[in-house]
């Protein structure tokens, strides 16, 4: 990346480093390599336990066809997208104005609110699960998109992050807008939101990765072989109810559900790494 750093080496001197990284990288990629390889193999070849990565006969259509015909995998992917999008929209709609108010407005109770934000940061998403489940069961909204989305609509972490971000923004910008007669709502909508894009993108990536991959809450909120399964649930259903030991079809399902995020990551690598580590504080 940097064209000449002090420890720039010749290719020959760099070779041991590259070789070691390549070997380690290959070990790391093994699950992906085998996942794709097995997803292309017919069943008998999988059970022959051959170490060859390239299938002797390709069973692409059979394995992927089985996934497509036996479970509504497209629906699962769509569910994942709907849930992630719904969560993100609410998180931003709640956290952006709150973050702005905590950073830039003077009002009594601000310190108390911020103390609650810090308190909220201590609580992992698994903790409120039991009362939320009981409440959702009694109001009859289990097995709905609302049940999947609602508990994640509030991200104290997003509030915290946007507050930090807005604090670094110059006050002059807001004063100038007030001079021009803009109300607080218009300031948020016309000045704050457009300027918050870098932080919002970073948070969006973090949020989508977290919720696309989440298993814990969907497992609780959606039961039976629901039409509402997210990708993670879909893989589990397919495994326990359909595929069992049919590793070819199982790996095909795994590949299909892993591809969307991995593809997005490979396209926008730097943004992903920045987004996830910048917001990685949440752990």
């Amino acid at each position, binding site marked *: 990346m940097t064209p000449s750093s002090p420890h720039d080496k010749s290719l020959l001197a760099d070779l041991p480093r590259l070789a070691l990284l390549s070997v380690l990288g290959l070990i790391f990629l093994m699950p992906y390599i085998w996942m794709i390889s097995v997803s292309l193999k017919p069943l008998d070849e999988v059970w022959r336990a051959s170490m060859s990565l390239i299938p002797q006969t390709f069973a692409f259509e059979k394995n992927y066809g089985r996934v497509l015909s036996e479970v509504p995998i497209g629906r699962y992917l769509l569910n994942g997208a709907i849930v992630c999008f719904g969560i993100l929209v609410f998180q931003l709609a709640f956290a952006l104005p709150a973050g702005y*108010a905590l950073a830039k407005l003077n009002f009594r109770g601000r310190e108390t609110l911020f103390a609650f934000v810090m308190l909220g940061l201590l609580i992992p998403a698994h903790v409120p699960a039991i009362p939320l489940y009981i409440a959702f069961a009694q109001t009859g909204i289990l097995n709905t998109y609302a049940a999947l989305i609602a508990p994640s609509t509030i991200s104290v972490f997003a509030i915290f992050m946007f507050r930090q971000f807005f604090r670094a923004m110059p006050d002059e910008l807001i004063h100038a807008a007030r001079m021009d007669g803009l109300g607080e709502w218009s300031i*948020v909508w016309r000045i704050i939101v457009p300027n918050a894009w870098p932080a919002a993108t970073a948070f969006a990536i973090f949020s989508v990765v977290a919720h*696309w991959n989440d*298993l*814990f809450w969907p497992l609780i909120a959606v039961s039976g072989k629901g039409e509402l399964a997210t990708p993670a649930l879909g893989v589990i259903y397919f495994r326990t109810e359909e595929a069992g030991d049919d590793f070819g079809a199982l790996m095909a*399902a795994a590949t299909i559900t*892993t591809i969307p995020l991995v593809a997005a990551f490979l396209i926008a690598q730097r943004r992903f790494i920045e987004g996830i580590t910048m917001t990685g504080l949440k752990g």
Partner: protein
Amino acid sequence: MSDVALPLGHAAAEPAGERTHRGEALAAWLLTAPAILAFVLMLLIPTAAVVAIAFTDYELGAPALRFVGLANFAELLEDRGFVTSFRNTAFFVAVTTPVSIIGGLMLALLIESGTRGRAFFRAVFFLPVVSLMVAMATAFQYMFHPTIGPVNAALRGLGIVGPNWLGSSDSVMWTLAIIGVWEQIGFNMVLFLAGLTAIPRDLYAAAEVDGVRSAWSRFWTVTWPLLGPTSLFVLTITMIRSLRVFDIVATLTQGGPNKASEVLLYTMYTEGFTFFRMGYSAAITVVFLGAVVVLMLLQTRVLDRRVHYG
């Protein structure tokens, strides 16, 4: 800026300033109201409720509930299943934390020590962080399959009889820990890479002038001391992430064989949502929350120190 008022307009400015102040407070409450409402409904009340439920014998569908004091917590201590679960979680944290931190640091140093292929290798090791863990877990299930899995096939090639990785109670936690390290190492690597780039280049030059020549002593005299804050931060974050292990257990072992891979969140899940023993499950949640809070407070203290030193 706005505090600078002309003496002439001073008297007139007072009421107007008060009005904007009240307007500002009103705007602030309106802007925070949706967040406050969601926070109270989805986080604050449920968290308070889970602590309250932990002191009752509440079961879903039961007609009544009784306050039982610390009975649930007393039962936890007697419950062999819970004790195993707690011990397994501690084991998982104790293995994955040091390995994924030291591994992440070594990968970061290795990538940083040259200029070729940086972005490529960073992406390779980071890939697990963005991958659907449930799907990758099934890939691991195949790889660690005792008869047809490539891991044991490779071991057979070396003349070693591989274990029944996920199927035997002796090896199942080790196997899950391997998967846990694979999942976490790239994240730690990226945090260390950020820490490494923040180290000023001239410090290395200065160290060289002072006679620090080998890469080994350069690491211990410059890199490691300056990475200190990053490392402590990575330590607490990794421990909390490890503590939350759930997906791979739910996908691969369901706590088995014979409860050998029960972990806190999975035990909490089965007690609460399979057996509907909400009171007991809530008590496990409280133990989990307690552990996370202790680690988080540790982290905040570390972060405080980081600010002072920086």
